[in-house]
């Protein structure tokens, strides 16, 4: 989108320069336009908006950092706090809890990216999947199921009340992280932040060759396109960052993070056949 805009501006700049130099259209020249002042004010405006967008991106990344830690903690608590007779990683109830945990991470990624999670929930019991199909918020329903399984362990006497409280607290932390992500997802930047920078940058880029053409003549397209590129790039950066869960090259790398959590948790269960890590593609991590 930005490159198309830039292409049209280049054509506009060339036509202004050609009309001024070869067709004597001197009325096109507006040398007294306060371009420097306008550019300064516009920069401040764009930087302010980009800061707000980056804050959202960074908060999303921080929340998913907390998700990595909390998922690992939950897995560790299931494997070390629940009373078992044999090996904890072979206990079917503990395995189910840990598998639900990494399935939850995948489901939350899909929920935030508005993607269908069910093809990824293949390792869960068919009964659980059927129950989840009726849910509007699948990850929250999964937390509830995990809570019910932990309650069953408590009822069976495999957890005392103190350890039950600890695990329940971890589930609440998952809920808090999800709430934070949903807040970012559900609250877009104010409309003015999207609309005004685009209009102001466009107006500035159109005025730019008019203010320069008297002095720079045929070199006008070179200078004005370069300056326009800077402003359009600044605006595009802000737009790319403002939704960190939009499944694009610039969003939070949820695919990579959720895969890492899955590898960690499956390793905790003693599995050897693990999926590969997600690596950057052309410098972008998804």
């Amino acid at each position, binding site marked *: *989108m930005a*490159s*198309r*805009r*830039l*292409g*049209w501006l*280049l054509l506009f700049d060339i036509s202004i320069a050609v009309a001024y130099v070869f067709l004597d259209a001197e009325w096109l020249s507006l040398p007294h336009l306060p371009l420097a002042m306008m550019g300064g004010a516009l920069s401040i405006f764009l930087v302010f908006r980009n800061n707000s967008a980056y804050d959202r991106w960074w908060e999303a990344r921080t929340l998913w950092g907390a998700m990595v830690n909390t998922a690992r903690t939950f897995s560790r608590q299931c494997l070390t706090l629940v009373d078992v007779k044999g090996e904890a990683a072979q206990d079917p109830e503990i395995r189910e809890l840990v598998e639900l945990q990494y399935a939850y991470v*995948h489901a939350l990624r*899909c929920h935030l*990216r*508005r*993607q*269908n*999670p*069910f*093809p*990824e929930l*293949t*390792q869960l019991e068919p009964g659980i999947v059927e129950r989840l199909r009726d849910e509007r918020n699948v990850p929250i329903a999964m937390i509830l199921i995990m809570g019910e399984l932990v309650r069953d362990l408590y009822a069976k006497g495999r957890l005392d009340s103190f350890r039950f409280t600890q695990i329940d607290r971890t589930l609440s932390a998952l809920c808090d992280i999800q709430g934070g992500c949903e807040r970012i997802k559900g609250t877009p930047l104010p409309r003015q932040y999207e609309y005004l920078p685009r209009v102001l940058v466009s107006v500035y880029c159109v005025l730019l060759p008019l203010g320069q053409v008297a002095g720079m003549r045929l070199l006008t397209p070179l200078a004005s396109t370069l300056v326009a590129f800077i402003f359009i790039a600044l605006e595009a950066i802000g737009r790319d960052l403002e939704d960190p869960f*939009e*499944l*694009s*090259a610039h969003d939070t790398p949820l*695919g*990579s993070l959720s*895969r890492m959590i899955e590898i960690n948790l499956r390793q905790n269960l003693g599995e050897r056949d693990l*999926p*590969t890590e*997600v*690596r*950057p*593609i*052309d410098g972008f991590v*998804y």
Partner: protein
Amino acid sequence: MLNHKSYEVVFLTDFSDACFRATRAVAQLVDELDLGLTLLYARNKETESRQAAEDKLRSFFPEADRYRACRRIVADTDVVSAVAELREHRRFDLAIAPVPDRFALPRVFHKSIRGRLLKELGMNVWTIGRGVKVAKLGPAAKSVACVIDGGAGHDKHIEAAVAYAQRRNATLHVLHVMPEVDEGALFMPSGLLSEAAVAERFERVAVGEAPRVELHVSTGGRVGELWRLINACDVDVMFVDERRAMSGGSFSSYVSKLVDMASCPTVCVGKDGLGLEMEVGKKTRALKVVAKEASVAASTEFSFA
């Protein structure tokens, strides 16, 4: 699971942003159709090693590893030849080919990969353009459109649209734009020039019972009017005839422009059809004809036997 047989889909990726956006829709298709998915990347042998290409492909759409059947293939030839080669050993019902990210200037002599897939291989192609809305890629389709124009065609796209609408219990919008005729016209335009003619064409092909069918007939510029109708009907997926879908030469067809502007994905259906079968039910269908001025409110209902 919507279909009786397993579907085989090849997803052509160049790791563009559009390919990542399309993964949402693929996840939905996997859930609906129980897809066998092949991810295909054609590397440039001159600039990229096989190992680097395989690493990139392994990291693309990582969640697909958890799907029932997913293969990842790096090809050393161009993408259309690679698909042709794969088809010698395996049937593919659909190719997923999102539009590449491109720079500002039009590529006059560029041959569209989608166009080549349609023309040279006769494949069904699922695609999105630059105007696609992200919200249209994730959820299940509730509103399906089928574009009928006046030209001769195999009309397999009508069958596919009816069958898909049946399976999704979605509303089917039949879209048609008539050319404007005035007293200054030198030639009488050809094609379907009345609502009844469009309805008759639809009836002839669509023997199955779609849950709700709405016929939208308008006049004016084809691309602009179809684009308006798609937005007015809030279409989630659109089916078009492959023969008018993509041009392989220098000038784009009207459907090619429409695909680029449309807010929803487009399925270009080839002469062999999409492989979805219509459920033949009762013979009477209520076809709701929606006038141009009243795309929401006033409408006339006809019954066809």
